[in-house]
């Protein structure tokens, strides 16, 4: 073997090892080794699969019930026919929980996409331009953050009337200042970095530095916040539904409303509160676990 050949073999060995790929690929590889991330991802995958495949998975219709077996003092619990029992309207609880995942997922994804997009746009403008643009945007965000999140969402949802769309809008609005502040702070930090100075010393234009160098390096905390915000969005959606601000159609299954409906019957049919509660818990837990693992994988300071 010649010198050059063995050299390239050595280099190849390096490539296939620890160091290959971009920072994102590296983070992904680390995620796969982290059991917390794997559990989180599995929970999320289960949640998404259930939501998408609801018509195939649900054994009964979520909206039609048989009231013949229901009395005030007796709601049938889990049985071999109805694994999670029946609800107060005689509907299959399992089917309702399966369909309920759809509302949660839809609200979570849509509100997060809306909120994060708008927030990041504002944050990027503030962080990119600085000066008075920054001041105006950030004072606005401060005002929005001064009101507690759920309270703010209730106000927005109440203003727009009860419907799924107003819940999504409300949660999106709450998320805007969170993402704006996060991206701006991250960009301000990156703007002072050595590679930005080096790029400036080579005459790279300001706009290109902001878009090509500063922005991509500032996204890591935003990605983490994204997963955590999805968890919060699901909780907020349940909270708003619990307070009666969810979908206008009461037959649409929503985990939050399922909790409201059973609160009078906690003594006789506690399972009707436990099952939707568990569903909320598990989906939120999944996003939180993955978010924490992502934070670890993307933050070089926490590594090793």
């Amino acid at each position: 073997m010649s010198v050059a050949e063995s050299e390239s073999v050595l280099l190849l060995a390096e490539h296939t090892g620890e160091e290959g790929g971009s920072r994102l690929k590296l983070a992904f590889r680390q995620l796969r080794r982290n059991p917390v991330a794997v559990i989180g991802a599995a929970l999320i995958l289960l949640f998404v699969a259930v939501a998408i495949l609801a018509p195939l998975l649900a054994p009964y219709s979520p909206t039609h019930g048989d009231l013949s077996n229901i009395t005030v003092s007796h709601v049938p619990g889990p049985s071999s026919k109805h694994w999670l029992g029946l609800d107060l309207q005689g509907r299959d609880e399992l089917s309702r929980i399966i369909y309920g995942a759809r509302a949660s997922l839809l609200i979570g994804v849509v509100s997060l996409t809306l909120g994060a997009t708008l927030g990041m746009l504002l944050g990027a403008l503030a962080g990119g331009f600085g000066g008075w643009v920054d001041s105006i945007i950030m004072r606005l965000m401060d005002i929005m953050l001064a009101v507690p999140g759920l309270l703010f969402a209730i106000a927005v949802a109440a203003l727009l009337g009860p419907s799924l769309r107003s819940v999504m809008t409300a949660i999106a609005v709450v998320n805007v200042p969170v993402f704006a502040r996060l991206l701006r702070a991250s960009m301000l930090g990156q703007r002072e970095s050595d590679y930005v100075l080096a790029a400036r010393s080579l005459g790279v234009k300001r706009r290109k530095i902001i878009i090509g160098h500063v922005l991509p390096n500032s996204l890591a905390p935003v990605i983490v916040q994204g997963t955590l915000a999805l968890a919060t969005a699901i909780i907020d959606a349940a909270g708003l539904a619990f307070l009666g601000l969810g979908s206008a159609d009461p037959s649409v299954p929503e985990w939050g409303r399922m909790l409201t409906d059973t609160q009078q019957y906690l003594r006789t049919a506690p399972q009707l509160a436990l099952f939707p509660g568990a569903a909320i818990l598990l989906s939120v837990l999944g996003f939180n676990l993955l978010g924490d693992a992502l934070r670890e994988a993307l933050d070089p300071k926490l590594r090793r």
Partner: protein
Amino acid sequence: MALLSVEDLTVTFSRRGRRPVHAVDGVTFSVEAGATVGLVGESGCGKSVTSLAIMGLLPRRGADVGGAVRFDGDDLLQLSPNAMRELRGREIAMVFQDPQTSLNPVLTVGRQITEVLERHRDMRGRDADREAASLLDRVGIPDPNRRLKDYPHQMSGGMRQRALIAMALACKPRLLIADEPTTALDVTIQAQILELLKELVVDSGTALVMITHDLGVVAGLCDTVHVMYSGRIVESSDRRSLFAEPRHPYTTGLLASVPRLDSPRGVPLRPIPGSPRDLLPWAQGCAFAPRCTRRVDQCTAVAPDLLPDPVTGHALRCYNPWPPGGEAVAVPAPIVAEPIVAKPAVRRARKKP
């Protein structure tokens, strides 16, 4: 006419409620086309700020720059930000101290080089890629075509500094400012990088301003040396004369604190006592006086001027310099070694198992 002439450059940092800091306080020097000039001093003496001021990279707010920086006749301090941006990278480029942080971690090395080519040489696509590969090849990176697709974290420190030098030289600038380009590297790599700079810059006629605290670097590379202390030049001379007959107590102190291989065992190093923070404002005398072993009463009364030294011809800012040849100070061995040491950029092959 000199390519770059810095005239009475002052940089003052001011913050509300604090006393302004004169980081650079009347620095004057010039660089001829193709020449190599060293700016030497401890951390905090103003050498990096000088380079950032020349490049126009100091923040506009809080930093007050005075004097003139003439490059090819134009005063860079008077140019518009746009005109200055055109000049940076094309006519004047810079290599920074820390190659670990000076490359963007999310972009491939190739992309970062082609960005400069796009900006200043209007090259795109495959042309730019080919040029980038040939640049990497020129700075001694093996297998440049594949290395273009590498991210900075996949490269070693020395290779990253080579890539940064390739970026700086992408447009064949007439002036390169290297701010401690070897400080963050280990010694064998330092020698390689210096040799590379010497080869690429000095031999191709690009002028080089070398900013360093390391007299070994100066000994190997620079034609002219300016020793700075607390924002002012305290001694200037050509390299040979500076090492042969250092006059300023600070210069001799720097030379005496460099370890040498050929001094007998047991001879202690003699660091300069105190730190650059124990300084006297120039308005009250010589800033070096609190640390100086040759201090006289005059030193703490009026700051000395930078005057030609009648004995050696150095420019000297001292009332009581060392007598020429008085205390013999050994010249440190140049770090730039024989090419045989500096050449192997490629790792030697391991023995076959």
